[in-house]
């Protein structure tokens, strides 16, 4: 294994995935905001709601194409860059991706064309249905992708088959109803709703500050404030659910997030501050809030949260058992009927992946000495300081959004659209939900290391047989292409925002010029 190939393959995956996820959250949330706005148009029959819907739909479109374009890369990248991964878990992991295409992406992509081109070709109700199908498709798409990702974090319902040298599905229901996947799905789509709400609110705030397109801006502000409040509450509460799912399923990730080097007596304290060190294996200057972690993670006063050192000790035991499984698989390769090897394999197969960790240090895991086992066991600890800080930044942003939307909702219900300090804040914080969403993915994926599939397949064994030169070629190519497209996208977005909505076709329906102070009750029109 050339570690440079592994690191570059990871870099490319991280770059293309994080870039893809710049566009996805807005699609997830804005599609539902469009449904809300268009429903208001269909119900009230006021042209201004048509104008509102079409304006945001235009911005939706500019964002949407890049999500689609960069999504193709994601679908193919497992094969191009992670060929051994594709072989090793394709029997399970391929299914949600295929179902995503069949059930979700077809829906989204077919109806999105009609959404843009069908305004004059069908009834209002039919068009609303089309918009709803786009929202449904994009959100179902997220569901299947997160079922796939959830399985990487918690590979339920699969067993290793020595005859085919890969994981195979044993219980498809366990793959579908994976608790990690469920928690991740609701958390991720809620994050998308928050992103879209911040975006719509921020752009509307800019219009309100400039005194432009006030009827559109006030309505958009109100819709986004309400939707954003609900979503930000949901993202925090369901994010907690996601953390709770770690308690049983990814103990090491939870311990790393908390930089909890040793198991503490229950209920464990929550480290509000600290400087964790991977080298010293302890957290300096730690400030602990008693009880909180134990309460969040176990939802009890007696449940114990296991510390890193204890989990490493458990990993050593699993490595020992994994070596037996590995030895049995080597025997079964040439002597498939060997009953002793079969029995040894059956007993230890759950830990086979832990023996594979040793391949980083020795060619044949069966020849590993105690030092190699120790190194392999400690390699199961992800980057603790990164986990610690990334989590706190993400969660902090989550709480900020709740406060922000609570204020926005308050102003919207009181028709106070002229609070300039708040409008300025709303404009300035537009980038924050994207930062939070990217941090969330970094947390999820760094926290899974060193595994590609938790406990099953180490990342360093999962890559394709590529050269460093090939990888640099594609990394440079993607960077250039994606970088250019990002600049073009942002410029077109800004141009479209500056240009504003199309004029309202029917006369007499827009409300009049806004009174001084910049706000007027919506009911006035």
């Amino acid at each position, binding site marked *: 294994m050339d570690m440079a190939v592994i690191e570059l393959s990871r870099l490319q995956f991280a770059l293309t995935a994080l870039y893809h996820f710049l566009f996805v959250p807005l699609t997830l949330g804005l599609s539902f905001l469009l449904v809300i706005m268009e429903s208001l148009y269909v119900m009230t029959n006021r042209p201004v709601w048509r104008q509102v819907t079409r304006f945001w739909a235009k911005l939706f479109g500019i964002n949407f194409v890049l999500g689609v374009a960069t999504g193709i890369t994601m679908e193919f990248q497992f094969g191009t860059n992670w060929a051994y991964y594709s072989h090793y878990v394709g029997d399970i992991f391929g299914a949600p991706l*295929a179902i995503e295409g069949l059930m979700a992406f077809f829906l989204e992509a077919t109806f999105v064309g009609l959404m843009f081109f069908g305004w004059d070709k069908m009834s209002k109700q039919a068009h609303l249905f089309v918009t709803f199908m786009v929202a449904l498709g994009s959100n179902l798409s997220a569901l299947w992708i997160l079922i796939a990702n959830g399985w990487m974090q918690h590979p339920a319902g699969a067993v290793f088959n020595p005859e085919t040298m890969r994981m195979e599905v044993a219980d498809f229901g366990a793959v579908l109803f994976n608790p990690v996947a469920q928690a991740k799905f609701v958390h991720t789509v809620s994050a998308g709703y928050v992103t879209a709400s911040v975006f719509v609110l921020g752009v509307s705030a800019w219009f309100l500050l400039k005194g432009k397109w006030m009827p559109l801006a006030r309505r958009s502000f109100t819709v986004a404030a309400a939707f954003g409040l609900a979503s930000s509450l949901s993202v925090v509460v369901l994010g907690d659910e996601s953390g709770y799912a770690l308690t049983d399923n990814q103990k090491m990730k939870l311990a790393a997030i908390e930089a909890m080097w040793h198991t503490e007596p229950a209920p464990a304290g929550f480290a509000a501050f600290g400087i964790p060190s991977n080298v010293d294996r302890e957290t300096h200057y730690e400030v602990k809030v008693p009880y909180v972690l134990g309460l969040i993670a176990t939802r009890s006063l007696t449940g114990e949260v296991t510390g890193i050192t204890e989990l490493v000790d458990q990993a050593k035991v699993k490595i020992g058992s994994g070596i037996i499984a590995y030895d049995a698989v080597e025997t079964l390769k040439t002597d498939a009927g060997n009953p002793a090897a079969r029995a040894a394999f059956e007993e230890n197969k759950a830990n086979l992946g832990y023996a594979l960790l040793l391949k980083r240090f020795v060619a044949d895991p069966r020849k590993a000495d105690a030092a190699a086992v120790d190194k392999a066991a400690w390699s199961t600890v992800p980057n603790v300081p990164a986990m610690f800080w990334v989590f706190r930044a993400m969660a902090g942003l989550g709480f900020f959004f709740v406060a922000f939307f609570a204020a926005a909702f308050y102003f919207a219900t009181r028709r106070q659209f002229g609070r300039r300090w708040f409008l300025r804040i709303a404009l300035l914080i537009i980038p924050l939900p994207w930062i939070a969403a990217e941090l969330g993915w970094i947390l999820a994926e760094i926290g899974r290391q060193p595994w590609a599939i938790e406990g099953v397949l180490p990342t360093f064994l999962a890559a394709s047989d590529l050269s460093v030169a090939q990888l640099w070629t594609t990394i440079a190519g993607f960077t250039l292409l994606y970088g250019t497209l990002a600049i073009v996208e942002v410029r077109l977005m800004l141009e479209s925002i500056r240009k504003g909505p199309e004029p309202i076709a029917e006369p007499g329906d827009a409300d009049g010029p806004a009174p001084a102070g910049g706000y007027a009750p919506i009911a006035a029109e």
Partner: protein
Amino acid sequence: MDIPLDYETLRVIWWALMGVLLIGFALTDGFDLGAMALLPWVARGDEERRMVINSVAPTWEGNQVWLILGGGAIFAAWPFVYAVSFSGFYLAMFLVLSALILRPVGFKYRSKRGGAAWRAGWDWALFVGGFVPALVFGVAVGNVLTGAPFRFDTDLRLSYEGGLLGLFTPFTLVAGLTSVAMLVLHGAGWLSLKVEDGPVLARAQRFGKVAAVAAILFYAAGFAMLAFTDMGYRITSVPDPLGPSNPLRTTAVHAAGGWLANYATYPWMWAAPVLGFAGPLIAWLGISRRNHPLVFAGSSAATVGIIASVGASMFPFILPSSIDANSSLTVWNASSSHLTLFIMLLVTLVFLPIVLIYTSWAFKVMFGRVTTAEVRSNPDFY
């Protein structure tokens, strides 16, 4: 759980479904690719270009999902094939991806600004987005027929010999050009149905005629090379259609003429190449008689026939290895597990008909020719 269909049957079904998905992609998104490869040549001036772009704009996105689904379904049902082909053709895949990334952006962004240079730049990006995938997909199919340079070790870990340039040989170039001619013809067939009577339609017909002739010639050349050069493989071990998916359980050899053996054993398979040759002829006739639906029917038949003939020639091989024939992937050794194939079949049986229903509805809503008047006045047009 008891699976009501045996492993062999499911493998054959999934082999056929892989064909259905690839043909679905070529039949639908194929004309988008072809129309974009034709864009700079059939349309002069901004209005004509926009007419061509808007003839595909409302439906291309759904069409492209056939490719995404094809990728996902091959991952789910044929993980070995997914792993070997995508990583083995690494830089070629990157070329295709880059071209395919330009396409959606080109459609959406091109007409958002007025500058001539801006629009001309995106027109060429759209051309690349149509032409390059059409060519590289064909070259890739050519390489599938000649075999790819890969082998497995006993952990079933893959290794390759050879890089991007090794993919381009006389035969694979002929395959690539067959694909370009076939998809350009299909693009011309689509434009025959979708643009108003005028200069764009007339040029599309002219290019269609050239493409029809080229498709027949390149396809015939490819077929001749299958017959007269030493191409083809043969399984030497006893096939085990019910056995576990492990490529190392099969032995195979390089065998000249191996790709024509199926036509002797199963004469009904001739239907595929016959359709492949008849399709372009029908399209040519359609153009001569100004029968536009016939042009599209002919180009569709060509697409179905040519792609199906690749599968028919190779069965049960899916992807042979040119450096270690014993590593070759076949229908009997490269699939997912029995249970996964069955579950995925159920999912497909439920959802594919639904997809076909709403896709047909989308095409019905957008039925009709794009006119200059509409290009000038419709605010939703790109």
